[in-house]
């Protein structure tokens, strides 16, 4: 079967409507306040699918919700000894076939990264796995990167070679469709009427779009250089000290980041007889993330926290997985009110590498 097809733009909505019959369909939708989020579409006639803005949040929360109940627990007395006894009742999510439409390359790449953590071999996180198992990704190659994007520098876009089920490229009146993983093949086989074969001219046009997209990045972020500098020596005390001066410990960068997936588990007592065990997002920039009993904290209260997050993204994951775990989505750039974002970090490291002195704001 040919790996490239054409989907007329007019036929996109009808196709999604078909897919909706057996799946949840999730796509970037602009709400009435002008903000775009990935949203489940139930009513195709009244949903404003928005492919012109970057969705404000990534897909992270669909697989790892900001807060989820892992199990309920009930306390009781042991029938003989009378000792306090806990019984647990797991709350495992049901598998729901879902089509994620309009996912940008960076966000899809981020899912591949989180898969590495939660779905590796036998060490599967059942909660993540259940949500993730029946997902189909129809991604969109970015013909026009957004203002703070730098996926070209993290090599997670603007177009992908793998990871998607279908990848679409905007050719004006039609979508150019590349088929990736088996689910993409199956989708095409199930709804063949929507697709026609791509011509040589289509392929050329697609190549052209992809080529041009690479030239359209407004930010030039030297990710490789920063990685190299950190590999040479991970200290860079001056840079991290300067960055930390403005970090107020809010965790916003980690919450918005598609590849920050640290979590906390806590028991929430609801009444006399029991409660819930809840997993919530956490962030390594919180001092409490590493604080131990007796107030001892192996990571210092100011610089250590901030350094940890950037080193994880740019050094530790390179050591572990062979590439940085920042996917260049640029979301943390506007999130931090102090401006402590990854681009600033990389720029400061690069500046320090150049003139030898500590980075300045």
């Amino acid at each position, binding site marked *: 079967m040919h790996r490239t097809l054409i989907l007329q733009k007019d036929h996109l909505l009808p196709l999604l409507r078909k897919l909706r019959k057996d799946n949840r369909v999730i796509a970037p939708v602009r709400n009435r*306040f002008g903000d775009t989020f990935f949203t489940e579409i139930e009513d195709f006639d009244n949903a404003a699918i928005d492919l012109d803005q970057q969705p404000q949040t990534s897909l992270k929360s669909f697989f790892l919700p900001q807060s989820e109940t892992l199990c309920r627990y009930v306390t009781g007395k042991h029938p003989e000894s009378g000792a306090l006894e806990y019984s647990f009742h797991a709350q495992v999510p049901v598998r729901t076939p879902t089509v994620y439409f309009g996912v940008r390359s960076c966000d899809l790449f981020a899912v591949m990264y989180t898969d590495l953590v939660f779905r590796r071999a036998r060490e599967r996180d059942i909660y993540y796995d259940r949500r993730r198992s029946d997902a189909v990704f129809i991604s969109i190659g970015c013909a026009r990167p957004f203002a703070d994007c730098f996926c070209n520098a993290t090599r997670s876009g603007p177009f992908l070679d793998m990871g998607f089920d279908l990848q679409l490229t905007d050719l004006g009146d039609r979508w150019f469709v590349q088929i990736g993983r088996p689910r993409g093949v199956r989708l095409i086989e199930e709804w063949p009427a929507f697709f026609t074969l791509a011509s040589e001219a289509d392929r050329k046009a697609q190549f052209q779009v992809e080529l041009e997209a690479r030239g359209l990045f407004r930010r030039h972020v030297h990710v490789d250089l920063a990685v190299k500098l950190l590999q040479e020596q991970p200290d860079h005390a001056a840079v991290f000290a300067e960055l930390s*001066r403005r970090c*107020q*410990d809010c965790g916003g960068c980690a919450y918005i980041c598609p590849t920050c997936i640290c979590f906390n588990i806590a028991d*929430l007592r609801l009444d006399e007889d029991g409660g819930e065990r809840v997993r919530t997002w956490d962030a390594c920039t919180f001092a*409490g993330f590493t604080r131990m009993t007796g*107030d001892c904290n192996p990571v210092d209260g100011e610089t250590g926290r901030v350094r940890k997050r950037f080193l994880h993204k740019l050094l530790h994951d390179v050591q572990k997985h062979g590439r940085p775990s920042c996917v260049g989505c640029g979301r943390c750039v506007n999130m931090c*009110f*102090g*401006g402590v974002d990854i681009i600033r970090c990389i720029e400061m490291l690069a500046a320090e590498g150049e003139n030898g002195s500590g980075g300045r704001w």
Partner: protein
Amino acid sequence: MTFGSGAMTNSIAEIGEAQVILVSGSNTTETHPQIARRIYEGVDRGARLIVIDPRRTRLARHAHIHLQIRPGTDIPLLNGMMRCILDENLVDDLFVEMRTENFLALRDMLYRVDIAQCATLCGVDEEQLRLAARSYARAQRSVICYCLGVTQHVCGTANVRSYANLAMLTGHVEQEFTGVDPLRGQSNVQGACDMGALPGVLSGYQPVSDPSVRARFERAWRVELPTTPGLTVLDMTHGDGSSDDAGVRALYVMGENPALSDPDLGRVRATLAGLDFLVVADLFLTETARLADVVFPAASFAEKSGTITNSERRVQLMRQAIDPVGSSWPDHRIIIELSRRLGYAMNYQSPAEIMEEICMLTPIYGGMYHDRLDNGEGLQWPCPDRRHGSTQYLHKYSFTRGRGRFEPAGHVPPAEAAEEEFPYILVTGRVYHQYHTGTMTRRSDLANREYSRPLIEVHPDDARKLHLRSGLAARVVSRRGSCVFTVRVSERVAAGHLFATFHFAEAPVNLLTGSASDPVARCPEYKVCAVRIEREA
């Protein structure tokens, strides 16, 4: 009062464009992060940052000049700065001439001020004081942001007037990127004040004492209104609890937790206990609600619709996101039902209908209809009618009250000074991960983990003297009570000062604070109280 209206004169975004940003008594990065964003933005564009604060806050560390004054010495500091401005001919004469009144009184007062003496009194370097005065006065666009560190003093009103004096003297009001901006606290505290949740005014700051104002409201409500101002919170919660006719006998508290947040808690609790009847409406069973005869479970912001007004006078529409949890009701529904049972049938179908009445009766909100606010960003008052847009900054061509009036002020020492038995000054405030009395944040696992215990900040020199280390328990005693905190040795406070928050019911710091308050605003002096600190076994 000096300009004629109580709100931020500018918009938040303008702060980023100022050339000099003077921040006083505000731990902005912890309590107003989105305003801190603009301050950082300004600094990155080259603005000079002057911070006046007894504590070395994060913002103070970024300041070009940090005037680490003794708590309660804003007035001598500002008088010193203004004297310097006068001496060096940096007064904006044209502005003073055209737009203000009572300048001579200020000038005469300033001629009696000695800058060196002021600096000593405030505990700051004289040259730094002069530097701050010069950069503030010389820049074309200078803005002042202040917060509770300025107002929560016995001389809070005079403090604010002094900042206004400084701004008027140098012509730094009534234009974009200048002005005097109080940073308001809780998300809708500005809205609450706008709606007349103050003793002397009806909505939109219309005085109760004005018969024509009363007449308008009486026509709308078909009742007769009292002619005299009501009581301030402090008067309500610090009564003697006796049943003489002047005392408050019953209280209806909505979303407040005076049993933890008001000063001199011993007295507050006695007053609450002495009431005949206490009703509390809140999200959770707070310390105050536990004392109540009747508790109404109230709906949270996510469970109701309405508007919120922020620091920059922006009225924003808030829409219900989830159904009320449990048996909770939105506040307006509670009030309507209560009123009906008390024999006055209120009949409003929706918050939008209530807003229509607000628009009708409140000139500054005249055009704030829900359908207009549904534009993504709301509107800034004054907005007198439907044709009127947002007002970005106030006092454009003239002050609300006509001319801005200089109100010279002299130093008013705090109600308590450090002395032999109570040699330390305790300053109270807030931290990033907790909110007020913790009604909500202390129920959030993560927020609570980040700041889980009542801490007291002690300067390293004092810690050495007192044999205190971080992590040890210490008892702090004032004339009114005592509480136990965990010590955190920190250079954020100056030697001789201590800092604690009021978020924790385990160590209710307001058992220590006094109820001395500003005579005009009746805002209590949370920021200064004399204490001693000793190691707790």
